[in-house]
């Protein structure tokens, strides 16, 4: 399978990339690791006429402690997240989630910014960063803006990013010793999760996000509110799917997904509580 023809331009900076996609509008796509975009182009489900390659912008590949959060450059690869001592110390849920993305070869290429901007509701990192209350920083022609993860995802493969904006940084609040868990139910090792849960718990506070339970990742605030009100993990987990609209596909029915969401959320809360 070979993609349709396109023009390839390599951007020397984020500003240049933004200017290039601005010139070409909807016809252009940013290319980072390419592990979401290229498979779509090979199937010809995506046919951009211009690819603006930002994969060499190494200045956007970093993981830094920055006061109350960890700042992550948008072009940081999954493998870098997985093995980052800074993340392991300050936001271990994200390192754990990154280790669940695809397989080692995919993690050597795919980037956090690419994964978030692609916004596949079955992806691991959108849910993990949503659970953690991350803020995404987007750069456009007129400067940067901060977007809370909870406002970023608009629908299937759709975000609030304008065509001439690109993610440059992801800010993840430090977990301050919170317990955490990442549960992903797959049919085969490297598959997308049929349902997944990213969760952290610290005292009465918690964050729980589900993936592949709607057209966007879902923040299960009902679960967190129940926990804050003193509910047990088992009782709170019963509310896992109240805010979801689980899809129906070859892998699972909505009913089965709802069942999985409750079971996986209970496992996640119990593990997070014990970790």
């Amino acid at each position: 399978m070979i993609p349709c023809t396109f023009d390839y331009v390599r951007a020397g900076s984020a500003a240049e990339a933004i200017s290039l996609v601005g010139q070409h509008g909807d016809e252009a796509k940013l290319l980072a690791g390419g592990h979401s975009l290229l498979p779509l182009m090979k199937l010809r489900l995506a046919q951009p006429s211009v690819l603006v390659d930002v994969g060499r912008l190494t200045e956007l590949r970093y993981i830094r402690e920055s006061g109350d959060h960890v700042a992550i450059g948008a072009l940081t690869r999954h493998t870098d997240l997985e093995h980052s001592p800074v993340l392991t110390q300050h936001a271990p849920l994200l390192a754990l989630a990154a280790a669940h993305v695809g397989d080692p070869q995919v993690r050597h290429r795919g980037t956090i910014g690419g994964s978030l901007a692609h916004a596949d509701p079955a992806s691991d990192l959108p849910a993990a960063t949503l659970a953690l209350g991350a803020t995404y920083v987007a750069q456009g022609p007129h400067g940067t803006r901060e977007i809370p993860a909870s406002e970023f995802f608009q629908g299937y493969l759709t975000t609030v990013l304008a065509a001439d904006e690109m993610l440059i940084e992801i800010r993840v609040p430090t977990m301050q010793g919170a317990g955490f868990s990442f549960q992903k139910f797959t049919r085969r090792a490297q598959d997308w999760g049929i349902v997944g849960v990213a969760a952290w718990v610290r005292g009465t506070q918690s964050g729980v996000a589900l993936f592949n339970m709607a057209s966007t990742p879902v923040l299960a605030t009902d679960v967190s509110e129940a926990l804050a009100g003193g509910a047990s993990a088992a009782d709170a987990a019963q509310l896992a799917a109240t805010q979801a609209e689980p899809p129906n596909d070859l892998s699972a029915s909505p009913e089965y997904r709802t069942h999985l969401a409750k079971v996986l959320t209970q496992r996640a809360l119990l593990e997070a509580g014990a970790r």
Partner: protein
Amino acid sequence: MLVQMSVNGRHHEHEVEPRTLLVHHLREAIGLTGTNVGCDTSSCGACTVHVDGDSVKSCTILAVQADGSVVTTIEGLATVAADGSTVMHPMQRAFMQCHGLQCGYCTPGMVMAATSLLAEHPHPTEADIRSGLEGNLCRCTGYHNIVKAVMTCAAETGGAA
């Protein structure tokens, strides 16, 4: 677009159409057909090569993305001894010894993924190997001997493979 890369220690320069995938570039322009195209959807890992030291699926990278990179394919693992004979890489030897292949189609990708795995985890457990090779499928289902081969190689080389 002009694309240059070092493949198995040799410099190559070709005019490349942007949509050319690295695996086709390696097989068709450079003539190294050891890297197989399997599923062509970045699932099976048959096309695994190393780009700048990392295992990657060459069916999901454009050749233009690998411009300026150092690429190693299965043909680049063996070395030539002083007497001109071919010396197999320890991982290749381990696959032979442990019968880590049946039909052989997944083998180039398996070996490349395994050498990358040992570079990152020099002393892997069996579980590390099984999860480290999750991106490579063997349709003969010969996983048991493949895992044995990687264990054997890790033990023989002290993880230096």
